């Protein structure tokens, strides 16, 4: 890789095993300066191990980690200039808020006036100037995590690492604090790696998301790409709600499938052979739902409105009210394959009762064919989706 294309934070061919368990396998990532990257995946997928290798708490078995073109792979954590925020806050119980924030600068023997100024600025930034003399036990979880963030930023690290920083907090505080984290990160332009198993957090915060599973990278992309164009079945099922419907290839060249006895079209040619079984992934918001005579349109497709090229008869099984969104559970075909359809709530919404026949319709662009050897060309699909926005 040439110097010009090198990222600010570079991980190349990083591997880590614990005994026979391969925690991280051939991890490659190039993050630009100021970028907000999330590692997203279920527990045990290797995301925290990778983060800890960047921090220096674990050392890779092979591969290299570079920050701003400097090799840090073998450096101990205290020589790395990498700030870290922990899930458990890890504030020093014996120190006040101000002393916690100033700890790193005191270790680096910064002059007292400089420490006081920086601590004051950071307390302003996290909106807690009046809490300087409090001790960690006197603060709420959200406040403790704000202090932990300020403490990590006080030494002006080159890279900020956050290890599931919000997972111990209440839902409301979690949302508020993640906005705050993103705002502060933008303000300081600090390169950030954020580990989470919460897809909503990753989608909202990140410039790019690294989706991981079983120690491997499944996909790296913007939240938009990850959600709309999952590269693997794992990404499709892990990020967002997904309907996975079995189908068979009818005409690979024309992108035609047979789903529950009905013909379904996709946007592009498929690479499989006729009769081959595939899985079609459909996001709930891509599907329109109406009564068979079309008199009651319950849901419209995000891509095509009320009508779609592909039409499937279905039966309403249940209706879940989720607040702003209403999720209709339907079943399709003789196997009663479950298909979820999302629509925005409105007071006049009249969802047919359970057992009623309905028709689902969806555009070819909404279909993601997930069988490994029948994946449609991603760039075509991306272009088509962007054109339709």
């Amino acid at each position, binding site marked *: 890789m040439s110097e010009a294309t090198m990222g600010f934070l570079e991980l190349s061919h990083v591997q880590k095993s614990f005994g026979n368990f391969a925690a991280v396998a051939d991890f490659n990532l190039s993050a630009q300066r100021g970028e907000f990257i999330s590692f997203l995946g279920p527990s045990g997928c290797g995301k925290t191990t990778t983060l800890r290798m960047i921090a220096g708490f674990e050392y890779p078995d092979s591969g290299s980690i570079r920050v701003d073109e400097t090799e840090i792979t073998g450096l101990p954590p205290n020589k790395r200039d990498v700030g870290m925020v922990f899930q458990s806050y890890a504030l020093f119980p014996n120190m006040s808020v101000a002393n916690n924030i100033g*700890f790193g600068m005191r270790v680096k023997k910064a002059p007292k006036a400089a420490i006081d100024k920086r601590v004051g600025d950071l307390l302003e930034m996290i909106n807690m100037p009046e809490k300087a003399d409090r001790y960690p036990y006197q603060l709420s979880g959200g406040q403790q995590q704000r202090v932990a963030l300020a403490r990590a930023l006080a030494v002006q690290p080159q890279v900020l690492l956050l290890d599931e920083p919000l997972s111990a907090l209440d839902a409301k505080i979690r949302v508020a604090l993640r906005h705050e984290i993103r705002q502060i990160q933008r303000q300081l332009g600090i390169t950030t790696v954020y580990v989470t198993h919460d897809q909503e957090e990753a989608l909202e915060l990140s410039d790019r998301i690294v989706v991981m599973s079983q120690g491997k990278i499944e996909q790296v992309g913007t939240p938009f790409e990850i959600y709309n164009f999952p590269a693997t079945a794992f990404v499709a099922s892990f990020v967002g709600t997904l309907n996975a419907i079995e189908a068979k290839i009818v005409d690979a060249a024309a992108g035609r499938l047979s789903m529950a006895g009905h013909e379904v079209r996709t946007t592009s040619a498929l690479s499989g052979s006729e009769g081959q079984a595939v899985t079609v992934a459909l996001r709930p918001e891509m599907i329109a739902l109406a009564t068979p005579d079309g008199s009651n349109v319950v849901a419209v497709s995000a891509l095509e409105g009320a009508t779609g090229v592909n039409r499937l008869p279905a039966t309403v099984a249940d209706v879940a009210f989720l607040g702003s969104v209403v999720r209709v559970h339907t079943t399709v075909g003789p196997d009663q394959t479950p298909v979820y359809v999302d629509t925005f709530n409105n007071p006049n919404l009249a969802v047919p009762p359970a057992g009623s026949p309905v028709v689902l319709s969806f555009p070819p662009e909404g279909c993601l064919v997930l069988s490994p050897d029948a994946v449609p060309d991603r760039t075509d699909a991306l272009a088509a989706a962007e054109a339709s926005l």
Partner: protein
Amino acid sequence: MRRRRASLVWWIVFVVGFIYFFLPLLATLDFSLKAKPAFAAYTNSFADPKFFSSLLYSFTIGVVTIAASLALIVPTAYWVQLRVPRARSLVEFVSLLPFVIPAVVLVFGLIRVYSRPPLPLTHTDLGSTTLLVLGYVVLSLPYMYRAVDTGLRSIDIRSLTEAAQSMGAGWPTILWRIILPNLRVALLSGAFLTLAIVLGEFTIATFLARPAFGPYLSLLGNSKAYEPAAVSLISFGLTWLAMIVIAFLGRDTRTRIEIGGAH
């Protein structure tokens, strides 16, 4: 009804316990006051310069023992918990060995090894005192290790260590500024137990011929009637005083609450 019965049981346990602990003390006090004129046992004890010199000697040895065992045990227990948690049961077993090996065996072992070259420590006062301290470090090991280990378990040392490391702190800074202050209450209780052991210890001090408080008490018991009772009560009082001081020092709420809330 059930609650009343439970509280009755509680009271009975309390009264029995109180009598069990305090009746011997009251008897000792009563006996020590039998000396004529009144309080003679106490005034005689205070008048004996050996009382103070042996107490001071044992107290000094106690403080040195505490410092030495802290310097040995805190980094060891910290490292075991942080890096080799699997070795914890082994270290715990080693820390219990002083309960199995009698003090008299320990002191004869020490004398055998250190009364001849290459390290003839018993030949000098300083050498013997050093051996005494080392012997006491071993004796206090079960108590000190347990206190430190409990303290370490009550805080999230891994996260605290990593947080400090990510801010540039090295091991000495982490131990001195993060771990030790958060172990304060645990260290105080370990220190107190060690001091109590050292002040009353007889076997090792006698065989190493040290002018400690334990041998002094024993010697007094051989030659006098009432004074040993008085001195016992005085040393008991001093022990309680030390306990109150520790309770007072450990009263710092922020450490205590944080330790409770760190789980």
